[in-house]
């Protein structure tokens, strides 16, 4: 061997072990060179890798290790020192880098490990969030379902639709197996299966209402889980499957009365329905809280919707009823109007038809009375006249009464002399009373107003009727008429419980009492007295005329005058007192000029009753003229006499208060004079009162006189008393129309 400076390997290269080492070194070097290549390749591929320099370091380390092993291959055979040197350098570098890398890894590996834990943590969190998202979505879904359900429920006001929709929607939302509604029966003791989801026509199962489980559900406002075996839940035969969980909730059935304005609807109602919900069979589903809440909300909404529907139903029913009633009332009203119209037409026709013959009878009978008759004939004619007058009055009464009844009669209000009315009644009744030897006395209170505003004619009619009755039903004794102003304390009379007069400033209540000592009335008959056509036993015996309408009419007149009329009697044979109160107005201010024209006539007529009254007498006949003048002079008048129409017109002036003219002489134009006087004196208070003295007071004459504007007609011959009363009447009323 030469001195090649070679290093000999320790072992011979042909040794088997050496061979194995040689091969292994080769493969190691290969692997060590390829690993960094792979690393670089994959790192290049990935976008993010924070530890690049670590990689470089590691790569260097591996490359150097590979180089070492590669160089080692040459050391198996004889190799020069250079190779050994290279080997040594390589190993040194490798050692250095390896140590550095090892040192580095101490820092890096914990970091890498923590990355792993963070990753795990994040994964868990992600899973949790996913779960929560799922839950929220589900809740949102159910919320949407509830809204939709509520909308569906509230969009209809039909009870059945509401309930059906509820069940259907609930079933869909919650994916229920079965959903059922139990309603309380009419008796309130049982619950009846009314609606179900699956079964179309539930047969009428009923359960008693007082089961403990039901009470439990009713006493809580929440949905309550119940056992699937209780009777309300066993509606759907589950067979061999395990039934799902069942929940029941109460549905309050509210009434209108539950909705107070001030309080919220308290569930003080005892009526509940029961809603039972069953989860699908054989599922492991449980009732979640949100589902239960949904059920409760739905139940409340259903309650409200149901009550709305009920209220609506009721109001629709009421409205239909009202419409029906309206129609019926309208029809009835129209029928009534037709009837009233027909009645009025009938009355008008009958009135006219009845009055025409009556007129003929009365007129001709009075004419007949004027002619020469034997006493028997005269009696007959008088009876005919009296009866026909009575009949005429009856016809008038009937017409008046019917007009009174339907309210079409109105009072003719006017100012009139109250005392005069009473005196007139007295005058009218005196003859009859004296025939019956009855004494009539009139007491007018001093505070009674002289003038009053009211319907004079009807007031007189009333007084006359009452007094007439008193006279009619008294055989002997006396009749006293008292009239006074009703004072406030007297207004509260025990008799007049429905009558509450109110005293005021411009009206007063006139109270008239007519007491008689006649046959009286028994207390039980008193109410009947004022009904039409009713006659009590005692009156039926007597021949009382008037058909029993008189008092009824009086009552109506009195009522029209806002008053009250009643009769007091202690019994049969003890007489009776008729009392009535009417409301009369107080005239504000009497017309001054009218007052000046009405000189006050003192009740006791003396011979000079009309001092200085200027009167004009026109009569062609000397004798009549003288007689009339004598009459008037005797009464104190200042008489001017004329004997022709021209003279009359010449002489007449507004100083003459009354003109008496003879109007029946043929060829005389008494009527024309009247017309001329009217033309001459246009103002009413300047014109003298024109009175015709005539020998016949037939209708034609009277009509003629009325037509030309005369104020009165007197039948000749005129007695002193008659002239006196005529003058006083004329001067008070300015019109007399007839004095026989």
């Amino acid at each position, binding site marked *: 061997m030469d001195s090649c400076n070679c290093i000999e390997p320790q072992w011979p290269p042909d040794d088997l072990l050496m061979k194995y080492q040689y091969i292994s070194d080769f493969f190691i070097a290969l692997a060590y060179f390829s690993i960094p290549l792979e690393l670089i390749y994959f790192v290049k591929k990935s976008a993010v890798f924070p530890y690049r320099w670590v990689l470089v370091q590691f790569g260097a380390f591996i490359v150097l290790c590979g180089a070492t092993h590669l160089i080692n291959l040459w050391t198996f055979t004889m190799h020069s020192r250079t190779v050994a040197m290279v080997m040594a350098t390589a190993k040194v570098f490798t050692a250095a880098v390896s140590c550095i890398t090892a040192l580095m890894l101490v820092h890096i590996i914990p970091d890498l490990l923590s990355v792993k834990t963070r990753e795990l943590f994040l994964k868990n969190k992600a899973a949790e969030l996913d779960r929560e998202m799922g839950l929220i979505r589900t809740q949102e879904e159910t919320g949407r379902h509830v809204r939709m359900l509520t909308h569906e429920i509230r969009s209809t006001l039909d009870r059945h639709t509401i309930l059906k929709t509820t069940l259907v929607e609930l079933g869909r939302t919650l994916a229920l197996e079965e959903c059922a509604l139990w309603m309380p029966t009419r008796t309130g003791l049982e619950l009846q299966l009314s609606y179900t989801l699956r079964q179309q026509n539930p047969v009428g199962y009923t359960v008693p209402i007082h089961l403990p489980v039901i009470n439990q559900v009713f006493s809580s406002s929440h949905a309550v889980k119940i056992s699937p075996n209780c009777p309300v839940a066993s509606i759907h035969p589950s067979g061999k499957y395990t039934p799902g969980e069942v929940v029941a909730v109460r549905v309050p059935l509210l009434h209108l009365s539950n909705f107070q304005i001030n309080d919220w609807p308290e569930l003080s109602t005892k009526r509940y329905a029961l809603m039972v919900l069953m989860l699908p069979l054989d599922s492991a589903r449980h009732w979640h809280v949100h589902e239960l809440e949904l059920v409760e909300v739905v139940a409340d909404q259903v309650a409200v919707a149901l009550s709305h529907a009920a209220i609506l139903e009721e109001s629709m029913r009421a409205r239909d009823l009202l419409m029906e009633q309206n129609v019926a009332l309208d029809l009835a009203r129209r029928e009534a109007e037709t009837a009233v119209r027909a009645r009025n037409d009938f009355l008008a026709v009958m009135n006219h038809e009845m009055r025409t013959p009556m007129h003929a009878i009365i007129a001709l009978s009075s004419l007949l009375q004027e002619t020469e008759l034997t006493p028997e004939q005269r009696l007959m004619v008088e009876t005919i006249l009296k009866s026909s007058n009575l009949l005429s009055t009856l016809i008038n009464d009937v017409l008046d009464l019917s007009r009174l009844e339907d309210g079409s009669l109105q009072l003719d209000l006017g100012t009139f002399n109250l005392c005069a009315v009473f005196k007139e009644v007295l005058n009218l009744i005196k003859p009859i009373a004296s025939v019956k030897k009855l004494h009539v006395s009139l007491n007018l209170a001093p505070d009674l107003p002289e003038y009053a505003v009211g319907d004079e004619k009807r007031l007189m009619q009333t007084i006359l009727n009452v007094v007439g009755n008193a006279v009619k039903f008294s055989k002997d004794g006396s009749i006293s008429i008292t009239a006074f102003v009703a004072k406030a304390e007297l207004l509260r009379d025990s008799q007049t419980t429905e009558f509450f007069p109110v005293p005021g400033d411009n009206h007063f209540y006139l109270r008239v009492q007519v007491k008689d000592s006649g046959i009286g009335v028994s207390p039980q008959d008193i109410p009947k007295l004022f009904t039409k056509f009713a006659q009590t036993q005692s009156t039926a015996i007597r021949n009382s005329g008037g058909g029993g309408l008189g008092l009824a009419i009086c009552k109506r007149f009195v009522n029209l005058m806002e008053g009250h009329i009643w009769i007091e009697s202690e019994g049969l044979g003890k007489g009776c007192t008729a009392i009535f109160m009417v409301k009369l107005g107080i005239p504000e201010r009497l017309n001054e000029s009218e007052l000046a024209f009405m000189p006050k006539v003192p009740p006791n007529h003396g011979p000079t009753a009309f001092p200085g009254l200027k009167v004009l007498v026109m009569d062609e*006949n000397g*004798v009549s003229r*003288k*007689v009339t003048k*004598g009459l008037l002079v005797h009464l104190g008048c200042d008489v001017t006499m004329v004997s022709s129409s021209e003279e009359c017109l010449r002489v007449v002036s507004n100083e003459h208060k009354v003109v008496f003219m003879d109007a029946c002489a043929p060829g005389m134009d008494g009527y024309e004079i009247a017309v001329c006087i009217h033309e001459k004196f246009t103002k009413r208070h300047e014109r003298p009162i024109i009175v015709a003295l005539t020998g016949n007071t037939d209708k034609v004459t009277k009509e003629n006189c009325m037509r030309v504007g005369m104020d009165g007609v007197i039948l*000749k011959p005129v007695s002193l008393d008659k002239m006196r009363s005529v003058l006083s009447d004329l001067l008070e009323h300015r019109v007399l129309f007839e004095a026989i």
Partner: protein
Amino acid sequence: MDVVNQLQRQFLDYSASLHREGFLDDQFTQLQKLQDENSPDFVVEVASLFFEDCEKLINNMARALEQQGVDFKQVDASVHQLKGSSSSIGAMRVKNVCIAFRSFCEAQNREGCLRCLQQVTHEYSLLKNKLQTLFRLEQQILAAGGSVPAIE
């Protein structure tokens, strides 16, 4: 005084008989009532007027009825006047005849009218006599110093 009483009694009896026989009626009584201090001779005056009127009217009627062509209207007018006067004074019988007279006039019955005229004249003269007797009695009473009794 005895004389006065006697005269008064006579007066009353006579008045009563006149009334009874229908010569006078209530109207005459009324006239007598009108006689007072202011017009003491009222009744006499009226009666005189009446008599004058009557005579005039009767003459008119007689003349009218004598005509060939009787103007019934005129006669009727006269009768009407007479009727008025007689009723004013209270001459009942005269008035009644007038009524009948009028109907004859309307019927234009000349014979009837003439008959009535006769009757009227007759009644009128009767009445005139009676009234004059009555007035004489009154005068006698007044002359004797009494007062004329009022007739009820």
